[in-house]
């Protein structure tokens, strides 16, 4: 098992936002989570990435229990994420945003900083290279010097991808990566996601755009009122009565 949740549960007051969910993420594949608004998808991400402590249940990553780890430790293990509402360092340039993404793979400390050690120089170089590399990958090499507050929604989504990739992750969680992005560009972002998967990165994403999910995903889980109501291949999900009733409705066209 790669990453696995066991009876994962989160309560907010009386509300069961995530309710005893067992889910395993398939290594090297594109996994998707869908479900109605408020089903608990984002909360599920927040639990795995150490953002909220679970009320009960376990999260196992490559055999180790990461249930209680803080989010920075989880990131160090190779799990990265993006947020539903794009969350970036607003005042800085795209490049500065992404450079810091590789910090967790570096070791230099205050001492290195003050004495400008060889290690620091090497690591700074490494961070810059990494930043350029991921910006290239997401197609933003030209935008590197713009301030984040001045770029478009879609570009911000790409920066968020780049930032996640800069941490050298093996597993990436994407929360609605294409919300508010037009069909044309949605298409391009899908390609990007596939490209990431092609590099061996395992993907887990939340989306409401069914066409895209159906095309991309290898494995889909459906949440409703915090509970898992279905899991399977896209075709299976598409034809699942419960899913259609709770989520897809008549035409899964959007």
């Amino acid at each position: 098992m790669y990453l696995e949740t066991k009876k994962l549960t989160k309560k907010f007051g009386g509300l069961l936002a995530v309710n005893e969910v067992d889910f395993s993420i398939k290594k090297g594949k594109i996994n998707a989570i869908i479900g109605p608004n408020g089903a608990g998808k984002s909360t599920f991400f927040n639990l795995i990435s150490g953002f909220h402590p679970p009320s009960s249940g376990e999260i196992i990553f490559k055999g180790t229990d990461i249930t209680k780890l803080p989010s920075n430790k989880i990131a160090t293990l190779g799990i990265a994420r993006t947020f539903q509402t794009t969350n970036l360092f607003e005042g800085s340039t795209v490049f500065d945003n992404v450079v810091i993404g590789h910090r967790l793979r570096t070791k230099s400390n205050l001492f290195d900083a003050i004495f400008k050690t060889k290690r620091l120089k090497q690591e700074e170089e490494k961070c810059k290279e990494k930043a350029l590399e991921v910006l290239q990958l997401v197609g933003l090499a030209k935008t590197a010097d713009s301030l984040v507050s001045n770029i478009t929604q879609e570009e911000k989504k790409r920066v968020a991808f780049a930032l996640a990739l800069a941490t050298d992750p093996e597993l990436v969680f994407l929360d609605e990566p294409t919300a508010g992005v037009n069909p044309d560009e949605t298409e391009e972002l899908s390609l990007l996601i596939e490209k990431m998967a092609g590099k061996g990165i395992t993907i887990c994403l939340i989306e409401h755009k069914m066409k895209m999910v159906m095309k991309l995903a290898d494995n889909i889980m459906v949440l409703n009122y915090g509970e898992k109501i279905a899991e399977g291949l896209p075709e299976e999900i598409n034809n699942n009565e419960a899913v259609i009733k709770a989520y897809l409705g008549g035409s899964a066209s959007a």
Partner: protein
Amino acid sequence: MLELKNVTVKYGKFAAVEQLNIRIEKGEIVVLLGANGAGKSTTFRTISGLTKPFSGEILFGETSIGGMSPDKIVQLGVVQCAEDRKLFPQMTVYENLIMGAYVHRKKKNERMKTIEEVYHLFPILYDKKNDMAGSLSGGQQQMVAIGRALMAKPKLMLLDEPSIGLAPLIVEQMFESIQQINKEGTTILLAEQNANAALSIADKGYVFENGRIVVEGSSENLFCNEEVRKAYIGA
């Protein structure tokens, strides 16, 4: 009802929108299409008075509202449901909705009726009415934003990408509701990425590119336009 004449909007020196001409008749649903960063939200912000136009004129009925303060514009009946929702995160859902009726604050009964309608439209909001808006899921927040705009009983409602983050089922319902709201007499200006659904309920549309309108016409025409199909509807 609303007319933009040669409107240009600048952020610093950069013109986000240039020489814009838009005309909306009473009772219509008009849709703005365009890629990300094309200038749709900027147009909305300008109509609502959140951003001041650099040049040009905006007429609402007979009144020139270009550069007017946002609260006056709302009082005139032009209400926006903004792209990033702009909710009051630490107020409850109920309080958020009630604030939507700020311009009608003297009319309690009417307010209570409208809020029932909103609850009817989005039943989940009724269940969540005592929760902080900030604790809601993304899609639920979007519903609060739309509901709050409805509370003002606008004459002209500006909806900036209302379907962002909504589940397909809800998107469907929402477009139906927009039609419903429109039938009850509210004129609607809609910005959407979901061109397919938007054009199917709209009377006419404008297509933006880099801050300018490149195509305009009735929704049927736009629907058949090859380029529009390719870019905004997906093959």
